[in-house]
């Protein structure tokens, strides 16, 4: 799976969880750029992403991402390891 494919799927997860089809994600997107992305919805997104990709993030990872790109790298690593 490529970075682009993962980004698209993560974007769909955001649409679904935040109930907002207008969100457009890039690897540079941060929580400040998305209206409803706060510390609580963050956890909804994390759990939904884990389920979708059938992976498990560590607590350190969940707290460490500074933007969507870092999150996607993390998914890539787990899918390819």
């Amino acid at each position, binding site marked *: 799976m490529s970075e682009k494919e993962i980004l698209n799927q993560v974007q769909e997860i955001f649409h679904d969880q935040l109930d907002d089809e207008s969100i457009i994600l890039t690897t540079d997107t941060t929580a400040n750029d998305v209206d409803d992305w706060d*510390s*609580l919805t963050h*956890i*909804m997104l994390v*759990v939904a992403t884990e389920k979708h990709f059938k992976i498990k*993030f560590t*607590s350190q990872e*969940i707290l460490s991402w500074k933007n969507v790109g870092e999150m996607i790298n993390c998914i890539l690593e787990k899918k390819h390891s």
Partner: protein
Amino acid sequence: MIINKFKELKKNLKKDSTKFPVIKVALLGDNATQFLAIAIQGIAIERGYRIELFEADYNQVERQFLDPTSELYNFNADYIIISQSTHKLLSKYNKEVPERQIYISSERLEFIKLMCNSIQSKLIYFNYPEIEDNVFGSYANNVESSFTYQIRKLNYELMNLAQQYPNLFICDIAGLQNKFGRDKMFNSSVYVTTEMVVSIDSIPYVASRVMDIICAAQGKFKKCLILDLDNTMWGGVIGDDGLENIQIGHHLGIGKAFTELQQWAKKLKNRGVILAVCSKNNEDTAKEPFEKHPEMILKLNDISVFVANWENKADNIRHIQSVLNIGFDSMVFLDDNPFERNIVRENVPEVTVPELPEDPSEYLEYLYGLNLFETVSYSEADAERTKQYQVEAQRVTLKKSFTNEAEFLKSMNMVSEVKAFEKFNLPRISQLTQRSNQFNLRTVRYTEAEVEKISNSTNFKGFSFTLSDKFGDNGLISVVILEKQNTETLFINTWLMSCRVLKRGMENFTLNTIVKYALENGFKEIIGEYIQTPKNKMVENHYQQLGFLPLNTDGKNLYYLSINDYVSKDCYIIKNK
């Protein structure tokens, strides 16, 4: 029926709920409760309520209760939900020296008592899902200071506390964890990053259990279980397989699954849930196992209404409803056949129709998980209910043989016992205020504690009425609470009656009793009020029919009766001395 995912519950909050009745709920926790708050509000909307929520800031349980000027007291909640987590208790325990660890549960219990004593609202308190720290392994059972010992003791003592404090309701989160398992109920990384002690997938179930209690306390709960027979109550088809070959009991096929399901239904019946049968069969064929099969747990006298014919089940359920005179929304229908389930769902959508699993061996665990029969009271009178409904069926038959209503009523030899509120009838009185929806003029719900307060107040006078006749005793069936507005005016705060005793002249007897009390205590007039609800249209004209005159008031349906020229109403009920 199916519990929606958190995301869906969140969407519910955008729906229009302005027409729903409002319930004021406060939510306090020592853990992150924001998701729970959303889920509770979302489920409330599915059940026809709008929640006005006060969510205390994080970890404010003690402060809100100990400070008499806190937001909690100002908010004046109908229900206060308290989520004190096992994790927080564990971290408190971990900080104690070993000699003090044996007091962890009793200290917590003292605080819960304090909460119960300091507020009138109903408290919904989460019990404690166990965390096994395995410091002692299984030997923790032998060690009073082990966390396992302390947490189990706490959950046990909470049950005792709930019996002492009528305003305390335990929400059995520990039971939910037993059902799901800890690994589903709890998500370590979510906990570490957010202070949430329940996983997102489990939160809707916790919220649902909370709303089960609130709905039951609001008078919305299940009163009747309607059972299909073939392949639901026994394996096989009685009409085809015959009495010897249906599967029930421990000898044949998967009979054990059906035996245990029948045992569950029997326990519900003993608790006061009415059982009815709705089966596509000839009546004689359908009744044969109940009469002759030695392994049947349910007998004919467990069933209040038995309907077996070839009509469609939606019509048959309407018939059962008309005999029992309870709301469709208080009925549950069990049927193995998806076609029948859908017919009922489409035609009588208020009836709850569980989507039974295909394999009958899974019926029971599935039904356990739905928690369909939440209640907020239990009294011994509940167990008598089946008999009363069966007797009612006999009365209906007798009534048909009389052409004259008065002759029929006279022939019933009715006797009523009128009593003030006293200790032993408080539970039943409180329960009636919670159960009665149709013949209920103002639909004010009272807890046992509130009824007790009324019984001790000089501003109120309560009456309870029983009714027995030649067929049997209906038990306590009517409650009146009179409120002294001033030296001349008596206000009927509550007048409710069980629908089992409609059309017996009980209303006349009750009014005679009220007027007699008013005259003896120097009152000049009685005011009654009708507050409309979706269910009490039956008594819309109650006061006019009894000779009250409408009062001109804006918005309120008030009625007035001058009692000096009151003429006692006819009735054929004798007062028991």
